[in-house]
């Protein structure tokens, strides 16, 4: 559905070309792409098979420039016409604002035309759209065939809703722009009813989400007439054969001269990347300053922590506790490590800083190392014991036993 962007002054509409297989839907877009004046069209994107049958859709953006102060753009799509692409057609129809039904005027294709119309009704319904309310134009294509179904009969059988219609020979670029103008006009009229400014002095309620259905007869006068000869552009560029092709934009159309010859012969491959004629429109009006947003949360660091960086204090404390536990374990089971060999090794019998087993150091008050104190105590006790024993032996003192 139409997207209206008042901030950037843009209106975007979607039009879908529908119809049975090989009725001329893709040809319509090709002719619009080749013959639209100036820089109104962008790249024509076609997702098609190797044999140039539309596989998913063709897409062509058509920018009309400023209309009523709004940059107006139409996105033109085609659907794959073959029967087994029914689901794909439903997807492409999603959110469409207008439909051009391209019917094949060949009498042998009348059954396919009828099935395609029923398919369109069903797919629109599944997308929440009603064919009676959506802008639709019927294009009776291939009017140059040797045998064609009369327009009145085609209208009677296919156009049950009395929608506008026009004749066409899309391959000759006849009637292509007429159908486009008809459907675009209907879309814009409907949009204006919903979002247009009320005339002076008239009260208008707030626009509803679903606009009122447009009376079909109001658009009927612009119908049922054959198309005039449109301006002729240079010969069509050959169609590429890749599965997904992007066509470069052709040069602007020259003055109309003679009738265009049919495209024939081998088809060359267009370079993979096309060029967009017109960049996306910039914001036309300066946007007011947005309301202040809460400060964003600090970005979460996803990178690995730098090993050279100083670890946070909490981690340092845990390591030191672990280290202390480990040191106490080592003290309980400590053994003198073997003396390192080599010229850098210290002399045998000495303890170096690296070889000394870890011990929990207990500082004495006098500042003497514990070992020395203990040794002194044991030596003293030993001396005393020996002295007493000597005296007992000499019978100088009585035996304590």
């Amino acid at each position, binding site marked *: 559905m139409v997207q209206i962007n008042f901030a950037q002054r843009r209106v975007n509409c979607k039009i879908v070309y529908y119809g049975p297989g090989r009725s001329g839907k893709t040809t319509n877009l090709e002719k619009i792409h080749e013959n639209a004046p100036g820089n109104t069209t962008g790249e024509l994107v076609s997702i098609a098979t190797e044999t140039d049958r539309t596989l998913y859709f063709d897409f062509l953006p058509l920018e009309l420039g400023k209309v009523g102060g*709004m940059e107006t753009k139409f996105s033109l799509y085609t659907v794959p016409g073959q029967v087994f692409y029914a689901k794909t057609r439903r997807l492409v129809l999603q*959110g469409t604002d207008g439909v051009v039904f391209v019917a094949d005027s060949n009498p042998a294709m009348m059954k396919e035309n009828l099935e395609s119309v029923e398919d369109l009704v069903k797919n629109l319904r599944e997308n929440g759209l009603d064919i009676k309310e959506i802008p639709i134009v019927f294009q009776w294509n291939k009017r140059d065939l040797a045998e064609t179904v009369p327009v009145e009969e085609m209208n009677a059988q296919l156009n049950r809703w009395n929608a506008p219609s026009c004749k066409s020979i899309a391959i000759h670029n006849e009637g292509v722009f007429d159908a486009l103008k008809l459907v675009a006009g209907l879309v814009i009229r409907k949009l204006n009813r919903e979002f247009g400014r009320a005339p002076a002095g008239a009260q208008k309620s707030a626009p509803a989400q679903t606009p009122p259905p447009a009376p079909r007869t109001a658009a009927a006068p612009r119908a*049922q007439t054959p198309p005039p000869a449109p301006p002729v552009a240079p010969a069509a560029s050959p169609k590429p054969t890749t599965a997904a092709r992007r066509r470069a934009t052709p040069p602007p159309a020259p003055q109309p001269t003679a009738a265009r010859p049919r495209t024939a012969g081998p088809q060359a491959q267009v370079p993979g990347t096309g060029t967009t004629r017109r960049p996306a429109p910039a914001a036309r009006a300066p946007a007011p300053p947005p309301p202040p947003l809460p400060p964003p949360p600090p970005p979460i660091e996803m990178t690995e922590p730098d090993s050279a960086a100083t670890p946070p204090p909490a981690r340092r404390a845990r390591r030191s506790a672990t280290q202390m536990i480990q040191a106490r374990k080592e003290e309980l089971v400590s053994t003198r490590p073997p003396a390192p060999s080599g010229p850098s090794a210290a002399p045998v019998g000495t303890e170096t800083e690296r070889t000394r087993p870890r011990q929990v150091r207990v500082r004495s008050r006098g500042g003497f190392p514990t070992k020395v104190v203990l040794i002194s105590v044991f030596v003293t006790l030993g001396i005393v014991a020996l002295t007493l024993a000597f005296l007992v032996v000499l019978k100088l003192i009585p035996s304590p036993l």
Partner: protein
Amino acid sequence: MAEDFSAKMKRARLVFYAEDVGRIDTILEDFLSASQAKAALLVDKEGHMVTKKGMTKALDSTGLAALVAASFASTREVAKLLGETEFSVLFHQGSSESIHVSLVADRALVVIIFDDRTTIGMVRLHAGQLTKKINAVLEEAAKRKPSEGEKLDGSFEADFEEKMDALFPGSPDSASSNSAGESPAPPAGT
């Protein structure tokens, strides 16, 4: 009630006003600076682009919006075949550039293009917050009624018809009933 609103959002027309787009632009810019992605676009499900931020000058954003929307629609059908409602996130990885598409408010798609300056994990991490913020903006926009000032100009329809006549001269009304196209000719090629 949440389901009713979701269904309403799916059907609702997206009308964007200056404050909506301003807020969305700010959200996208914050996302790009946090995630180091190349570009971020907001596209509606019909393939119309709403706004874009980042390195988009060399990007055909119009075509990208249409193709991404179509791709999302087709994968939604695949999801239904698998018993899912839809896939809310799509990710396509290329040799140097990748694209991450996520659904917002059942109505729009956030398209994130990134290269090897960042990682998919970083993009996904910030994309979750991004979609929530844009979701809030879109829900507000859907609930808001348009103000009297924000309407199409009264001359919109007339300007349109003039523009179309100027760009594509000739109309069905001016053509005669006996068209040259009715004369017998060799069958058309297509």
